[in-house]
């Protein structure tokens, strides 16, 4: 049989049909497999969602597992089969496999049919035809279902059914069924799904949720860093668009959680460990939010928390002063300001408004967005371009960082600033001093009216302290009102400080020493305590008296000068009036000028009313009264047309007023002359004191030379005394350091303070004894000081254990105080050794030395006489100085006693003691000079203050060496951080500055400076 193409086509059709069938079967199986996988995945997802896992976690896990499986099945299993099923040869082989008897004839026909069709056959056609014949026969013998059965597809179908059943079971058992899982994976929240199915718990039963932390992530436009609010009450305050990330913790365990805003679709919340919640919402409008907490098929709601939408408010700006203030041209404004904003401050400026318009002075443009800024404007009106007489309105204006609106503007209340000239400054300064005198006077009266001691028992003493310690508050207030945080540059600052220190010592002592209750100090108040109270009370009174007196003296001087100046003006006006009457006696004009004169006299009378009650005031008043009377007579004369009489009386009036004005000028000149004379006396006295001190020291040197000559063995003793001098000085310094560490005593136990103070006294006593070269006395004082020092050390050791700070707290300065007291004890120990060594040394038995000492007694006697003469002069000069406080006289008395001691020692031939007393005398003489110089310096300060009160001294630059104390320096302007290129540069500058050494008197200023810096 000839094999025709038709035969071949039949075979091919048969094989194609087989291929198609196989592919159908593959497709069906694939579909079923996919169904199984999908259902399985959904069941897994429903399990996962029911367990509270988030959509993304589930999606990720499912995606991560299912897709590879599907890929593998499709790519590596189904795809080759699919492709293979489309080939004739694969189908031929499948048929050959079914009909082994064909012995590859079908395959051969399929393979060679192409060559045959092209006429390229190189094989036996006959054989090929025979094979084709058999192959064709096969097509009729075998059914396609025999080659490709649906049985496997049916198995897959069974699997799918099982999967579906499983899904059904899952759907009925799990809170989130497979179909729900589809929803969730498609975007619906698991919570809503669960919520729909869950049985809600009682509305009143809310789940306990706490430890809420809100983290606000502000919209980008605000340029603000996220802000975390731990321990929040759950209320959200934020501007719209803010995403709030919420962390919280539930009291019970749950298996899923969601967050819901109002009645919106709940959003899934994270739940870690069944209790730790994490969620986030974006603030859109006001409302409430809550957690939905799922446990199995139940849901509990957390309490509702408010959402308060806060639009970015304008900054709030407050200043330390409002209303009206007046400043001198060169006086720092001292205006404190504070800006707070809800979301960040961009800039702070000061706006100065006057008739010409408004201009701005930049204050701060913070590098980072900050919610709070503060500062103090130290610029002077001059630095702001203002001049005396200007009256401008100041406002601090802040802009926030709200980029949406371009920045909200916050304004402080307006402050009207009046720039004063010298006269205005003087008036203000005078008013301030009057107020200060008034409050100081009240405090002085209170202290003077105290009984001293105010009680006979500690409780009464403490009651007194409690009831009276606010006596000086008005003084503080007046001072602070004037100077703010700054220190006064005038003598008032010194006086107020002295008063505060003295009263501080009094109250500290009273509270510490009479607080015997509770057994803290473990001691009873003794008579000495009451005596010490009396002394400290007296010191407070003295400080107050001194302050009142000095301020009053200044006010009196200023007032007198003002009266004198006014008197001069009145006299000049009267003279002009008299001349006018001579030249052109126009009645109306004369009356007008009389009115003018009368007004001047009224001003004068007003000023005169503030003069102290004395005969001058009485005299002045009577003169003014008389002048007034004359003026009335002149008016009457003018009115009656008696112009000649008026002229004559005007002449007389002018003469009278001029004579009186001249008298006042004379009086002022006499006062000035008195001051000059006092200055001359002072100068002479200082020279005399210096000379006396030098001669006393020279005599001591002479005595030392005699000792070296005659008393060889005494050299060693003198060396020991010299050593003691150094040791005692050092001990005093260290004990002062110890007391400085204790400071105001705040936080310290009463016993520690008291013992420290006693130790300080004892140590100073040792120095005095050493200076007097009293070996026995020195040794006794040293031993006493050692005993108290040891007690103090123990008391310090107990600080922090039993002190008022409790078992853990330690008072400030404890470490330093311990260090100092140890140093004091060490020095005392050394002193004791040296003194014991001195005691072992032979006495002053050298007759030659004794004789030499006695020979110097005459010279010492002469010096003593000069000292006595100078003591009177010291008394006179110090009494004449309003700022003299008696310390020069006290030191002069000390010098006199030392010189008397020296004289006595020399008379007895005691060279060593004599020399000691001589050197002590020389030292006290130096202290006399120092005291007088201090009083003179204070007096100069007084005079400067007076000049300022009189409206003088402005624009005057201090001369070299004049007024160079730190309080006279203008407060430094604090540089802002943005003045530096980078924050690092700023920090570096800060640290370098803090490390720099400054003179001692500037330490406080430096401390204040950096405190303010770091606050920025």
């Amino acid at each position, binding site marked *: 049989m000839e094999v025709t193409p038709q035969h071949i086509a039949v075979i091919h059709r048969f094989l194609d049909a087989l291929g198609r069938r196989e592919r159908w079967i593959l497709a069906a199986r694939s579909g079923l497999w996919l169904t199984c996988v999908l259902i399985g995945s959904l069941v897994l997802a429903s399990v996962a969602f029911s367990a509270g896992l988030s959509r993304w976690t589930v999606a990720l896990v499912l995606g991560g597992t299912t897709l590879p499986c599907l890929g593998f099945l499709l790519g590596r299993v189904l795809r080759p089969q699919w492709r293979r099923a489309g080939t004739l040869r694969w189908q031929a082989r499948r048929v050959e496999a079914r009909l082994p008897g064909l012995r590859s004839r079908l395959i051969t026909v399929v393979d060679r049919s192409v060559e045959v069709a092209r006429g390229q056959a190189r094989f036996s056609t006959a054989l090929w035809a025979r094979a084709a014949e058999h192959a064709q026969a096969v097509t009729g013998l075998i059914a396609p279902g025999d080659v490709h059965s649906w049985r496997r597809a049916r198995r897959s179908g069974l699997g799918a059914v099982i999967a579906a059943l499983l899904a059904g079971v899952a759907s009925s058992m799990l809170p989130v069924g497979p179909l729900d899982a589809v929803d969730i994976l498609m975007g619906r929240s698991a919570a809503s799904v669960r919520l729909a199915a869950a049985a809600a718990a009682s509305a009143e039963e809310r789940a306990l949720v706490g430890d809420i932390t809100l983290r606000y992530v502000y919209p980008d436009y605000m340029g603000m860093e996220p802000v975390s609010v731990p321990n929040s009450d759950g209320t959200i305050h934020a501007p719209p668009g803010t995403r709030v990330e919420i962390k919280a913790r539930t009291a019970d365990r749950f298996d899923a959680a969601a967050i819901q805003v109002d009645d919106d679709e709940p959003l899934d919340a994270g739940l870690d460990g069944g209790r730790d919640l994490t969620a986030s919402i974006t603030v859109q409008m006001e409302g409430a939010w809550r957690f939905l907490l799922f446990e199995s098929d139940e849901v509990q709601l957390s309490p509702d928390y408010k959402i308060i939408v806060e639009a970015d408010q304008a900054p709030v700006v407050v200043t330390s002063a409002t209303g009206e203030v007046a400043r001198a041209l060169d006086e720092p404004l001292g205006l404190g300001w504070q800006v707070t904003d809800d979301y960040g401050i961009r800039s702070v400026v000061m706006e100065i408004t006057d008739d010409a318009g408004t201009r701005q002075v930049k204050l701060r443009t913070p590098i980072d967005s900050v919610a709070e800024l503060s500062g103090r404007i130290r610029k002077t009106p001059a630095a702001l371009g203002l001049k005396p007489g200007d009256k401008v309105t100041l406002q601090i204006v802040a802009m926030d960082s709200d980029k949406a609106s371009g920045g909200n503007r916050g304004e402080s209340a307006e402050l009207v600033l009046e720039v004063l000239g010298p006269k205005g400054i003087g008036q203000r300064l005078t008013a301030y001093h009057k107020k200060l005198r008034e409050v100081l006077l*009240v405090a002085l009266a209170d202290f003077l009216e105290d009984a001293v001691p105010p009680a006979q028992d500690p409780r009464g003493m403490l009651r007194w302290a409690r009831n009276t310690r606010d006596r000086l508050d008005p003084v503080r207030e007046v001072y602070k009102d004037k100077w703010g945080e700054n220190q006064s540059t005038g003598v008032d600052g010194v006086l107020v400080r002295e008063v505060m220190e003295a009263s501080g010592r009094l109250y500290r002592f009273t509270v510490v020493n009479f607080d015997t209750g509770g057994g803290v100090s473990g001691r009873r108040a003794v008579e000495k305590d009451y005596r010490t109270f009396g002394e400290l009370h007296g010191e407070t009174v003295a400080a107050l008296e001194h302050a009142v*007196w000095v301020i*009053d003296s200044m006010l009196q001087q200023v007032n007198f000068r003002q009266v004198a100046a006014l008197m001069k003006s009145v006299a000049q006006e009267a003279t002009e009036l008299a001349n006018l009457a001579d030249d052109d006696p126009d009645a109306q004009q004369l009356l007008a000028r009389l009115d003018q004169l009368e007004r001047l006299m009224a001003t004068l009378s007003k000023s005169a009313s503030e003069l102290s*009650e004395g*005969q001058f005031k009485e005299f002045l008043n009577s003169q003014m009264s*008389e002048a007034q*009377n004359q003026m009335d*007579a002149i008016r009457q004369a003018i009115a009656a047309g008696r112009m000649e009489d008026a002229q004559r009386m005007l002449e007389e009036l002018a*003469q009278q007023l001029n004579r009186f004005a001249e008298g006042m000028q004379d009086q002022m000149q006499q006062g000035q002359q008195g001051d000059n004379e006092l200055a001359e006396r002072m100068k002479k006295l200082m020279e005399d004191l210096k000379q006396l001190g030098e001669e006393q020291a020279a005599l001591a040197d002479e005595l030392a030379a005699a000792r070296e000559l005659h008393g060889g063995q005494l050299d060693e003793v003198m060396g020991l005394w010299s050593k003691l001098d150094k040791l005692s000085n050092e001990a005093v310094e260290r004990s002062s350091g110890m007391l400085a560490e204790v400071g105001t005593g705040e936080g310290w136990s009463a016993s520690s303070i008291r013992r420290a103070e006693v130790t300080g006294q004892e140590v100073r006593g040792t120095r005095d004894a050493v200076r007097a070269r009293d070996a026995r006395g020195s040794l006794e004082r040293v031993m006493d000081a050692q005993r108290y020092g040891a007690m103090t050390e123990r008391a310090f050791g107990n600080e922090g254990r039993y002190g008022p700070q409790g078992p853990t707290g330690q008072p400030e300065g404890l470490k330093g105080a311990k260090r100092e007291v140890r140093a004091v004890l060490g020095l005392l120990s050394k002193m004791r050794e040296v003194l014991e060594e001195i005691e072992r040394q032979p006495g002053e038995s050298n007759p030659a030395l004794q004789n030499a000492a006695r020979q110097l007694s005459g010279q010492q006697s002469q010096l003593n006489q000069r000292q006595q003469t100078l003591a009177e002069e010291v008394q006179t000069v110090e*009494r004449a100085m309003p700022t003299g406080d008696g310390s020069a006289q006290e030191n002069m008395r000390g010098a006199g006693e030392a010189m008397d001691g020296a004289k006595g020692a020399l008379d007895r031939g005691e060279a060593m003691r004599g020399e000691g007393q001589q050197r002590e005398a020389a030292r006290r003489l130096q202290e006399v000079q120092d005291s007088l110089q201090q009083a003179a310096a204070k007096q100069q300060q007084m005079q400067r203050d007076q000049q300022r009160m009189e409206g003088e001294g402005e624009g005057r630059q201090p001369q070299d060496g004049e007024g160079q104390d730190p309080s006279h320096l203008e407060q430094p302007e604090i540089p802002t951080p943005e003045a530096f290129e980078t924050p690092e540069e700023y920090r570096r500058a800060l640290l370098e500055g803090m490390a720099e050494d400054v003179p001692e008197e500037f330490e406080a200023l430096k401390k204040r400076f950096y405190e303010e810096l770091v606050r920025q």
Partner: protein
Amino acid sequence: MKNWYASSLGALVLLGVSAQAASLGEGVACLSAGDLPCAQQVRDQLNEARPASTDAQKLNLRVLFREGRYDEAVEVLDALEGQGIDIESEDRNPYRPTATAVAGMELVEGDGVWIRRAGGLEVILEEDALAVMQASRQTYDSLFGGGPGHDVLLDIFPTARRFILASGLPPEAVRTTGVIALSKWNRLLVSSPRSKGRGYGWKDTVAHEYIHLVVSVRTADRAPVWLQEGLAKHLEARWRGEHGLGISTHQQSLLAKAVHTEEFVPFEKFKHSMAYLDSGQEAALAFAQVATMVAYLLEQAGDEVLPSVLSRIRDGVTAEQAVSEAAGHTDFADFRQGWLTWLGTQPLIQEEIASLPVVLDGSGSEYADDPLLAARADLARFARLGDLLRGAGRPKAALVEYRKAQDPEAPPSPLLMARESACLLELEQPSEALKVVKEGVQMYPEFTLLQVVHGRVLDSLGQTQAAVQAWQAAHDLNPFDPEVQTALSSGWTELGDAERAEQHRRYGRILQTGGSLAGESETR
């Protein structure tokens, strides 16, 4: 002060000289003898004979000056100067300064006396000044056997400056010695109590100066300064009927000390004037010495010896001799010894009391008139603090300060005693206050403030009679205090003396109105 007279012998001769013989020299001699009527007579004769002559003008100038007609004197002076005659180089009378000093002052006439005072507040002095002058004329003219034969003019200058101007004295001398009144040029010149702020015993001072005038007239100016001052000082309170040593407590304390130490001021030292002594303290002792000498004389011989003593002096007997003999001593040394012995028996105040400083026209500090505080600036501080505290209504505290201001080693301070008493009164302790102020008044009766406080304290105790006396004492020292006038007005009303009450009410109104309500005055 005493005026220096030349011998009155020439004047006596001149009284009988005819108009034709009148000349400038004669007139000047009259004036030198203190005989103003004589000079007036010569002037009139000269004017009649040679009205436009230079001599007539020169004498007229001098007489007008003594008559107190200063403006007219200046007109004559101007005329003479217009003729090229420099009269001021011939005599040193302060013609022009006096005219300036009395500018605006008004003259008031009394019985044989004239008062010139300033207007306004000074009007208050008028009645008292007239009364003092009239009482003085009556008392002393009688006591000394006669007085000036002309009306006596008293110029009361409102300020020390004006007084100095009119006195011709160097200002320094006035301020050092505290001379605030003079008897010179047949007139009396005193400073108003207003010039010393808190006043002074101006009435006795007027009487004192009048005594000088009388003694000068009665002795033809031959009485030495010691006797002049002794008589004036011892008798200056006699016009008001007071008989006593006539020296202050301060002077008594000085005298007691001098008796003890025998350190008296030598007579030679104040031969010419008390104004030239070294200090106020020395002057006070000198016054005490001479006043007690006169007291000793009068105790030994009685008041009636005075006319004869003055007559003997006028007749050429030395004052020392006249006084010694009148007192029954052989010579002055004997008299002095007798005086010393007598002095030892006198109850002089031994306590050291300071003299009140001289403070004029309100000069000096507020405590310048206090003997302690003026010298002790350190104590004055406490006083000032006390004043401030008292002003603040805190008398208890003020009292503490006032007591701090006292120095037990120094003479007591009158001001502090007054202040302390005032504080005690404010603290409602009037008995304590009275004790303090009484002591003060005894020590410093011329310290007006003490008298004022004394009055207040007595008023508070309801002792009206005594209070009025205290207020009256304050008025006598300083009538320019409205409080004093108010208190006196009330006091006299209470005591039923409506006239005196009205008088002080009127003074009060004058003070309130600055003198504008003062009555009309005659101007000469």
